[in-house]
């Protein structure tokens, strides 16, 4: 395997890490207005992600850094071409951080419900924007011979991209709901449990629509699947993971269900990544302008150094991530230090 392929795989893994880890705390943000009714329940929801959301968001920062380092030409084209969309991502990221941090600093109910709404809207916004961006990447974008993307915000909001956006919202809401069942008890947990089957069905329907319209409309991806049939294993396993999650929830084994839901998210991303390979950005103007993992990558010297850094760093990351989750395991208990 060449360095470029290794870095493509690593980059996809980092993005999968982001979607799984930050995915559940975005999901909690999307759901908490609907399932948590009292101030105490809201606080429990918020504190279920309290000690970990910040570490989870680092996966996104790392994804940006890895893209910049490994595929700088993609990073430059994507971020400048999606200027206004990226600006909106920044706004919702900032608002979300602030909402989590500021919400419980005042007793006033209006202050708290204001920040609860901001927390909801920003979590929803991040999920939607990520999905829309991803939908555009799958569908292809107007990338010209100078590697510039000339797309207005409105042109990014195609029906397909919006469909992927809505699917992402439900995927993360489902993931967050399963997480919340692990961390809560009593009425709150009962309400979350009632939401899960609905979310699962809606997500399944939307995801099926995404698959169908991808097959019908987006030939680059379909051709890849037809040429090399083995990547079909990713969507197939994703379906298995969803079924496992549903089954385990009925058995009351929430933690296994949560792992299955995380696996499903990763497998769906791998399905799309296998379909895109070796392209990172597909030009809708001329396939000759596509940015691939070969023509958009850094030189082998940088990729080698980065690989060494990743191999040293990632074990530590996994070690202390596991440690933190272990220390904060179990149901949420509010203390004077909580949000």
């Amino acid at each position, binding site marked *: 395997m060449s360095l470029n392929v290794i870095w493509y795989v690593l980059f996809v893994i980092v993005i999968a890490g982001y979607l799984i880890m930050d995915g559940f705390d975005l999901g909690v943000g999307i759901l908490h207005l609907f399932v948590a009714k009292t101030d105490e329940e809201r606080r429990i929801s918020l504190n279920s992600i309290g*000690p970990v959301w910040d570490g989870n968001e680092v996966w996104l920062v790392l994804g940006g850094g890895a893209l*910049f380092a490994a595929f700088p030409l993609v990073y430059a084209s994507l971020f400048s071409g999606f200027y206004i969309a990226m600006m909106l991502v920044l706004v919702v990221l*900032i608002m979300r951080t602030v909402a989590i941090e500021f919400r419980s600093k005042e007793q006033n109910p209006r202050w708290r419900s204001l920040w609860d709404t901001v927390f909801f809207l920003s979590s929803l916004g991040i999920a939607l924007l990520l999905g829309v961006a991803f939908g555009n990447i799958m569908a292809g974008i107007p990338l010209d011979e100078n590697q510039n993307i000339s797309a207005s915000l409105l042109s990014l909001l195609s029906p397909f991209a919006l469909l992927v956006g809505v699917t992402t919202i439900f995927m993360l809401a489902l993931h967050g709901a399963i997480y919340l069942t692990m961390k809560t008890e009593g009425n709150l947990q009962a309400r979350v449990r009632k939401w899960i089957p609905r979310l699962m069905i809606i997500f399944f329907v939307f995801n099926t629509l995404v698959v169908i319209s991808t097959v019908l409309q987006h030939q680059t991806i379909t051709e890849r699947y037809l040429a090399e049939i083995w990547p079909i294993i990713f969507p197939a396993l994703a379906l298995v993971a969803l079924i496992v999650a549903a089954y385990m929830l009925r058995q009351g084994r929430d933690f296994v269900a949560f792992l299955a839901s995380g696996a499903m998210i990763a497998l769906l991303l791998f399905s799309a990544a296998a379909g895109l390979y070796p392209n990172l950005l597909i030009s809708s103007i001329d396939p000759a302008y596509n940015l691939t993992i070969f023509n958009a990558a850094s030189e082998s010297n940088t990729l080698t150094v980065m690989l060494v850094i990743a191999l040293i760093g990632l074990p530590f990351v996994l070690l202390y991530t596991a440690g933190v989750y272990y220390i904060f395991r179990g149901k949420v208990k509010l203390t004077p230090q909580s949000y």
Partner: protein
Amino acid sequence: MNPELLSRFQFALTASFHFIFPPISMGLGLLLVIIGIIYVRTGNPKWRQISFFWVKVYGLVFAMGIATGIVQEFEFGMNWAQYSRFVGNIFGALLAAEGIFAFFLEGGFLGLMLFGGNRLGPRMWLLSTFMVVFGAHFSALWILMANSWMQTPAGYTIQPGATGPQAVMTSFAEVVLTPSFFPRLLHVWVASWMVGASLMLSVSAWYLLKNRYVDLSRSAFKVALPVFVILSITQAVFFGANQAIEVTNYQPVKLAAMEGVWESQSCAPMYLVGWVNEAEMTTTGISIPCLLSFLAYQNINATVTGLEAFPADVWAPVNLTFQVYHLMINLGGLFVLISLLGALFFFWKRRIFETRWLLWIFVFSIGLTELATLSGWWTAEFGRQPWIVWELLLTADAISPILTGSQVAFSVGTFVVLYSILFILFIYLLNEKIQHGPEELSAVEEKPVSSLPDSFREIFGKPRA
């Protein structure tokens, strides 16, 4: 509207706003580690009470740092796409390394630091705090490394790429250890510790003036004061001076702009205050003869190269660079003065806690240290102009080619509004915390300290009760 000018303004705004917070994360963090060590060694509960109070402040500051920090990582691609294409091989690698080494360390342990006070024993809590603070310093290290490469690039070669030249890494060691890296890193770390110390001094002095939490405030003040005194003096005579020598050696035209030196001259004077007339090419003000030659070359007869020795199109904005630089060094001098007064009243007459005018000076010191740190960063960045990467890439050539003025005007407007609101909320909440003051320990402890897990063995070994 000109997208380049707006993008410059936007980056200056967002980077400056962000740079309010990381120095506190490092400096206040260092003091929290010191206080944690004192508590573990003495067991006196007042230190634990001080820790609980400052950890809450730390959480607020850290959240602001996180919220405003990710912006820069996006902006390199959004506004400076040509720059990103040019430096991706090198600068991108350093940013990614920061993410994987430093941010995960901070992100992983921050939860334990903020919420672990009554779930962990004192030693484990101290370890978590240390890890977060270590991560913050490590993060600064990678950023300084990346920025130092932009100031004094090394270990690269230029290759043609599809959209223009690209800098490609030839030696990772040279990229990491550029000549300006160590002097700049030490200068920034010391400055950050001074900011942290002055924050603790400021709040403690205010409590003392208001006669609240007198015992706790005296204790915190006694920890922070020696730190501030030692650092402000060493910063002035060693770390800052060392930084100036580095600039002299590697960026002489930047030094000329910082001091407003037009003609090359031996026994060059150093201005205390002054004004640069760029049209007339003159600098007027109050100066000390020969001091610049001495500071730059340790020889009063040494020749300092003037701006006229360089083509005018590689001059930084001279008066702007001059002013922000002099703001920094004058504040640095003021900190030495405040330190000497503080040490005098503390050690010699032992009545600093009754000297109200001096306590008031300390109350305002946090604003001054923040301003000094910011103006230092401005000196480095304004002084590097017109280059974005020193002598390799002009800032004007680094802009994203497809940006329109209205797009950038929208984002600038959004940042101005968003950051104004954030800043007001931040000050409001910080003030609330300070007014509220440290909690009684009985209000924060749910279990006695002795029953909290205080080693990895207790945390990972015992089954959940």
